[in-house]
């Protein structure tokens, strides 16, 4: 079986890279053919992942009912450091993989207006896809890191070569920010690696972590286990699943470093690395610049996929590997999320540049993701009932997918109009509804998805996250709830300035021709998905909920096991309200 999975997942990951290789042999002047070829490759990868989502794909099928990793394979890569070519899928990564292949395909279709160095563009584009898919699928921390960096470089060039006037600045800013995050991550990876020891795990745990292949017979497993136990020196590992087991079931990562447990530092470093990618205030300023300068399809990928890597990393790595640090820093994480939401919304309200506004809306919307992941409400006062956290984490995951649909849509809509009039000044639009009714209708629909209107995808994630916060902290909950007002304000004001009004106020008004078929073919799927996910969220929850719930249950279980050693987290603010008339308070409320 493993070899089937090896073929399957490797194909998914490396097919784009292979396509890039083939593209290198295309004659320089055949730009149209290159674009078609690249589109074909992305479409093929999308089809491949789509088939996995279908119910009757046999061995290939992604089984939504399984909570653990599936399609797992592990092949030695650098044995001297225990590094494996180790990949797998679960309900957390699969929706994101599907989203990646889908958005990449649409972005490639949106790349038709690119005329400069088409060959290089397509090659970098495909390599980028390989990098992203690799990050989502990798289960070996080292492999994860490699893909993380692989993804970084094409993005740098895609912004820096094909971008707008300030592209070099934006590209370097993007690169340095992300590289900084990557470096922090690397430090944390090494910290964890050098304090890990497979010998601390039981045989079952090792099998669960795929250190010992579950496909082996009982006897072989025992032999492998004995072999691991026989070593005198600690057996280090990069296996993310094994690190999770170590973090949750042993005190391998609790060694003291500068007065704090090692995992506290590791968590913080990883969090910074991921939060830069999300991005959360105050590490977000690369995003508006990168978006404003990047060409439309790259903005789509950036907003639709790359931001999700941060959220994915927090769910997959930060919390499960460092639960204690996650518990102690839960307020910090949630506060990051809430601050991003509020800050992003305020900043969006003040923007004059259409694309910058959408970029800040991304900051605000991704704040929900960080918040939803962080609401550690499985605490003593709650009897470790993790339902609210499940709701938050599922909401966060849904928000990632929903934002992955809505945000590329918004950027594409901005791109469509930018291509026609070559400016993005919000004060110089207006009246587009009359000139381009179909476009405006779709755009308004997609922007409403961003606004979180019920029936569209943005609502589900936002409302689940918001509702889950009360059990964690009341103040944060109230601030969270208030963001709906700001969101409505900046989105509606934007719509008013761009689409409504009597006439178009900016330059190149005569270029405002209706949407082309190609543009429609990109916008319509996004629009339809935005509605479908809003009306029938089960189509996403179906895949993600079992795994997400499993993750939350594991962490809640950890909290319960370690309840005695943990600092009490106040689940409810016991400060009494000001007494109104204490003497008249009745004993029984009837």
């Amino acid at each position: 079986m493993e070899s089937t999975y090896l073929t399957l997942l490797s194909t998914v990951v490396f097919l784009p890279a292979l396509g890039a290789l083939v593209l290198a042999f295309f004659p320089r002047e055949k730009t149209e053919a290159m674009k078609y070829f690249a589109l074909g490759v992305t479409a093929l990868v999308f089809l491949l992942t789509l088939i996995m989502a279908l119910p009757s794909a046999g061995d290939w099928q992604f089984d939504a009912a399984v909570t653990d990793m599936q399609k797992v394979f592990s092949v030695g890569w650098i044995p001297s450091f225990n590094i494996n070519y180790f990949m797998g899928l679960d309900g957390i990564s699969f929706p994101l993989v599907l989203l990646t292949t889908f958005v990449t395909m649409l972005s490639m279709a949106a790349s038709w207006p690119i005329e400069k160095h088409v060959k290089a563009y397509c090659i970098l584009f495909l390599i980028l896809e390989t990098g992203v898919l690799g990050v989502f699928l990798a289960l070996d921390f080292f492999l994860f890191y490699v893909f993380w960096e692989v993804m970084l470089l094409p993005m740098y060039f895609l912004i820096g070569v094909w971008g707008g006037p300030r592209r070099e600045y934006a590209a370097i800013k993007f690169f340095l920010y992300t590289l900084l995050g990557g470096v922090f991550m690397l430090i944390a990876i090494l910290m964890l690696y050098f304090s890990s020891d497979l010998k601390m795990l039981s045989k079952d745990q090792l099998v669960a972590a795929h250190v010992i292949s579950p496909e082996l017979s009982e006897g072989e497993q025992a032999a492998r286990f004995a072999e691991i136990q026989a070593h005198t020196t600690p057996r280090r590992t990069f296996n993310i699943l094994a690190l999770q087991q170590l973090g949750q079931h042993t005190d391998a990562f609790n060694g003291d470093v500068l007065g704090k447990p090692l995992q506290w530092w590791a968590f913080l470093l990883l969090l910074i690395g991921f939060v830069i990618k999300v991005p959360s205030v105050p590490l977000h300023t690369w995003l508006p610049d990168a978006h404003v300068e990047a060409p439309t399809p790259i903005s789509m990928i950036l907003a639709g996929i790359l931001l999700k890597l941060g959220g994915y990393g927090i769910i997959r790595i930060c919390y499960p590997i460092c639960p204690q640090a996650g518990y102690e820093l839960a307020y910090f994480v949630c506060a990051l999320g809430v601050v991003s939401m509020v800050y992003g919304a305020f900043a969006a309200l003040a923007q004059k540049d259409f694309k910058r506004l959408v970029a800040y809306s991304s900051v605000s919307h991704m704040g929900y993701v960080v918040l939803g992941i962080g609401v550690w409400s499985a605490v003593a006062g709650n009897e470790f009932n993790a339902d609210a956290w499940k709701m938050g984490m599922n909401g966060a995951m849904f928000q990632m997918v929903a934002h992955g649909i809505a945000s590329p849509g918004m950027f594409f809509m901005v791109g469509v109009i930018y291509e026609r009039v070559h400016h993005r000044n919000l004060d110089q639009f207006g009246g587009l509804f009359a000139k381009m009714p179909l476009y405006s209708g779709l755009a308004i629909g997609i922007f409403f998805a961003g606004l979180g209107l019920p029936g569209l995808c943005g609502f589900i994630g936002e409302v689940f996250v918001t509702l889950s916060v009360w059990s964690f902290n009341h103040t944060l909950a109230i601030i969270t709830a208030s963001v709906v007002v700001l969101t409505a304000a900046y989105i509606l004001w934007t719509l008013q300035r761009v689409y409504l009004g009597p006439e178009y106020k900016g330059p190149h008004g005569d270029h405002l021709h209706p949407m082309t078929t190609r543009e429609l073919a990109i916008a319509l799927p996004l629009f339809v998905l935005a509605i479908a996910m809003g009306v029938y969220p089960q189509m996403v929850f179906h895949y993600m909920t079992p795994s997400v719930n499993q993750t939350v249950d594991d962490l809640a279980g950890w909290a319960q096991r370690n309840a005695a050693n943990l600092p009490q987290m106040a689940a409810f603010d016991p400060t009494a309200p000001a007494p109104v008339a204490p003497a008249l308070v009745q004993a029984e409320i009837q």
Partner: protein
Amino acid sequence: MDPVTTLPVLLGIAWLVPLASFTLILLFGPRMGKHGQGAGMLATAAIGTSAVLSLIALFFVWVPAYDWAPEHHAAHAEHGAAEHHDAGHGEAGHDDAHDKDAHGADEHQAEEHKTEEHKTADEHHDWRKPYVAGEWYTLGQFGKLRIGISYYIDSLTVTMFAMITFIATMIHFYANGYMHDELHEITDHEVTLSNGHHLHRPGRFHRFFQYLSLFCFSMLGIVIAGNIAMVFVFWELVGICSYFLIGFYIERKSASNAANKAFIVNRVGDFGMIIGLMILIATLGTFSFGDIDTDGDGTAEPGIFSLVRTEANNYALVVPDGMVRAAAASEIAAGVEPSAEQIAAWRAETGPGGIGRTAYWLLIVAGLGIFCGCVGKSAQFPLHVWLPDAMEGPTPVSALVHSATMVAAGVYLVGRFYPVFTPETLLVIAVIGCITLFIAATIAIVAVDIKRVLAYSTVSQLGYMMLALGVGGWSAGMFHLITHAFFKSLLFMCSGSVIHAVHTNDMTKMGGLRHKMPFTAYTMLAGCLAIMGAGIPFMIGLSGYYSKDAILAQALSFKASNPQWGFLFYVAAAGAAITAFYMFRLWFMTFAGKPRDHHAYDHAHESPKIMYYPLIVLAVLAVVVAWPFWPVSIVALLEQARPEGFHETVNGVLVSNLTHPAEHISHEPNFHIQATWVATFVGLSGLGLAIVFYGLSLLNPAEVARQFKPVYTFLWNKWYFDELYDYIFVRPVLFVANRVAEFDKVVIDGIIDSLAMLTRMVARLDDLSDRYLVDGFVNGLAAWTYATGSKLRSAETGRIRQYVMFIVVGTVAMFVLISLYIS
């Protein structure tokens, strides 16, 4: 017909038909008939179908299936409570059996169609409110928390369905005529382009009906919703429909501003509502109103209502265990389920800061949060500012969305969520309603835009309903909601007819129009009389007569129990007088007297039949709908839906001596008669004033305005609410937004950029040191070597013999040295 299985299907279809219409028009709208004319017909047919289905559900399913709850039952008088009792025990028994049938049938149903009927537990003593609840499908489930699309059908739901679909049908007909202009290319005279011309644009007939259909779907969704989260979903959807419809004339800046204002102000209310939702889900773990068996184990999980009002406690308000537990969270040890005794002990602990007290506060805050949403939607003080601006939309929209249905949704939700409100919450509701009704009524006196007068009147009437609900008059409030929907939609449609005729909203340009458009004039007169509450005391009256009387009587009864809150009654009575005054001011200014603007007058004409036929139908209904003589009277229907626990007088807990008298007390002669007289008197006095000022022009209103200039200016500027909000909310928010953006640019990016600069400076230093220190050393060494070499080159003569000499001499010298030093 079996209501448990029939009602969800009938009302579900009635709910979804407009959605189908919306989808079809969205996809094929412009191709429907000539210029999209077919869209109007389709939408009308769709809502007509819904109306037929709703009426069938009401008259042929609900009414035959459930008995009436008689208003009084002598046997229970001694308990001091009006037990609304089932008159026919046999019928109740039937209900019981029926219930079992429902369960039996349930098990055969597909799982998305689980229905649960309330148990008629003790058929001998209590009337148990009948309802049908179930779930269609789940949006998400996490552990025990689930959010789904479900239904909760009681007689209020059915009545609301019938009312909404019927009025909507009338308005659809009317709109087919009113929006006729949109069939052609039209010129918008209110929009001037930069080149000085007026805007020409293609008509948008189909789009109007597309939004109307979506609105009907969303509105019915609110009414049928079986859980508070679903209410919130459709709450937002009606909000967005309202946004689209207010901003229908998208080219007009004022329209898009008004649309934005409406939506954003509503979102402020939603902010509170979300907090309420958060508390409910966090403490109760359910959003469902009724008891629904969602996990399929045969027993229903209790909904919010059952948790708040348990049968064991005789349906009196009780703080649910979940809230007590949440309040006591810090006292619960890890992994231990608190025992029932513990919870009871905590509940009793009500001293300052005690757990029971905190839990009670949670309940209050949850209720207030939900009410916040209602404040936004129903345009109550302090969020009333959006509704008058919303009149930018086409008039049928104002009639349907902004008077009869959507704005009433807030009142409806207060009524629906009534069991959860504590007496203290209700008091807040009453006070808010009271303030609203007064503010809006005073502004309406001076407004000259015909639709704005009606808009303020709507706000004021909604305030009445809130007041009624707040003082314990559940059925009075709901009753007024229904009657108001009929006469206010009528009034709006009449005003639309006038606007259609004279092409202006300004009443100062009207006058004498009754000669030109008699149907409009006299149907509107009926509407004015209805809203004034005209009637022959104790004999017969228009619909407003009954509902307003009920409200005043309840306010009076409340005043009797709580003398310190007596002003609620006085304000309500004063409001009634003002209502009569401004409504007849409107009528006189529009239809009576001499034409003020002859140009407008000359072009005026009666509207086409498709517009005034609905007016006549509604006028008749505005007169008769509330009559108690009908076999199916609204009051009796509403009494069936009265929330459990509100058959009796309830007392406040936190606020001293707050008492909500049971509503049946207000029917007793000492309140009822007094209230009727008061209502008649204040109504007539308002009417009289209007006649004096505008009907007979005995006094000149302009004189009075000059006399009371400050008051007049204050009212003319709508109490300066818009300016106030601009100063305390809009500007600060924009200010903060700009500062945040600047902070981003200046501080964060500044730090990043200066870090980059610093790095570059370090790099330059590094470069310098490289160039001058490291390279200097290496180069210097090389230079020295070169110089030495140059100096030594003169020794290289190229002569062999010399070299040999060197070798020899060198060898000899070495030998000499070695022999000297080594030996």
